[in-house]
């Protein structure tokens, strides 16, 4: 069994990441950024149905920083951007709820820091 998995891996085929999980984010997970961005970019392992995705961005006081619904990124079916406004520096927690094009829902959270 292991040698077949190795064969597939060598061929560039890995066991299926068959749900939409967060692959990377901008700002990155755990990053400390000095210049607050105007939007977040979340990249997933699968194509998304952005109309049914939700992203909440909150500071340590529970105040929301997202200013609108997630938007699709043209040409990148596995990405969504979220408009944000950061009123003050500090740690922000991003909670995402994703719906993949294969009809499965996933969720997760991460944080990053806006520095002075």
């Amino acid at each position, binding site marked *: *069994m292991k040698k077949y998995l190795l064969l*597939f891996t060598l061929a560039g085929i890995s066991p299926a990441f068959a*749900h*939409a999980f967060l692959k990377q984010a901008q700002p990155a997970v755990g990053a400390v950024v000095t210049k607050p961005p105007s939007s977040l970019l979340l990249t997933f392992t699968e194509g998304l149905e952005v*109309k*049914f995705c939700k992203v909440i961005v909150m500071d340590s006081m529970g105040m929301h920083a997202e200013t609108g619904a997630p938007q699709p990124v043209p040409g990148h079916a596995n990405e969504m951007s979220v408009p944000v406004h950061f009123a003050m520096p500090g740690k922000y927690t991003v909670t995402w709820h994703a719906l993949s*094009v*294969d009809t499965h829902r996933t969720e*997760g959270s991460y944080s990053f820091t806006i520095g002075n």
Partner: protein
Amino acid sequence: MDSPVWLVIRGLCRGLHLAGYFGAFGTALFGAVLGQGQLKGLRRLAWGGFVVALLGGAGWFWLQSADFAGAGDPATVLAALPLVAGYTRFGWLTLARMGLLLLALLCAQGRRWRLAAGLAGIGVLAQSWLGHGAAMGGPGGEVLLVSSLVHLAGAAAWLGTLPALALGLCTSLEPFALARRYSRLGMGCVAALLATAVLQYLLLIGKISAFFTTGYGAAALVKLVLFAGLLGLAARNRYRLTPALPASRGMLLRAIAIEAALGLLVLLAAGVLMQLPPPAMASMAGMGE
């Protein structure tokens, strides 16, 4: 609508939709490929498959929309339906597939069986674009997508033609010749199903213990056991009952009825399976956190 009960009901609706779709497609294929286009009752059988596909599909569409919207009340689900239909792959693909099936049935009504089988066949294969392979992309996704296309084609061509085969054997003056021609189609389908099942096990399940420790694995195991039963029945039909035709006609018809019933159970299990996360991706939980 989040509970395991609704997940299973949603999966059963999906499985029922598949069963009806396969039945309509299989009946058209039977008429086109096995030279049985003039068989009495074939068009009614095809329309029966369409109705089952429509009813199962409507239930699945409603429950899937409720799940997308996180909604429990009918009013909210109703409001979500146009969004699902217009803005999700599931929505427009499901509606397009039902449109294709209706066109296929209109062709079947005019006994244009090849065209009917072609149109319905496209609808069968399009189901793959709701699977993990199409969603993932990359080399792994492409392999899974191709595997899904072959798997669906094999399942639809085998299970979908069983009711029409029973109808044909009831009235055929040459049941042995019909059964022999069908056997060639059946064996090709079985080979395709076995090969793709192994590949999908490797990529989506990954280890034997997952059959007993995960919901996806349990559903896959049910499907596997039922498939083994189907294989046993098919082998008996091919090697014992077919050579004994026409004397064994009654026994063969009963065996095909049981095969069709087992096939329906396999599709219902498959519908539930497709609602669940494959174990091979379980280690990705928490990624990005």
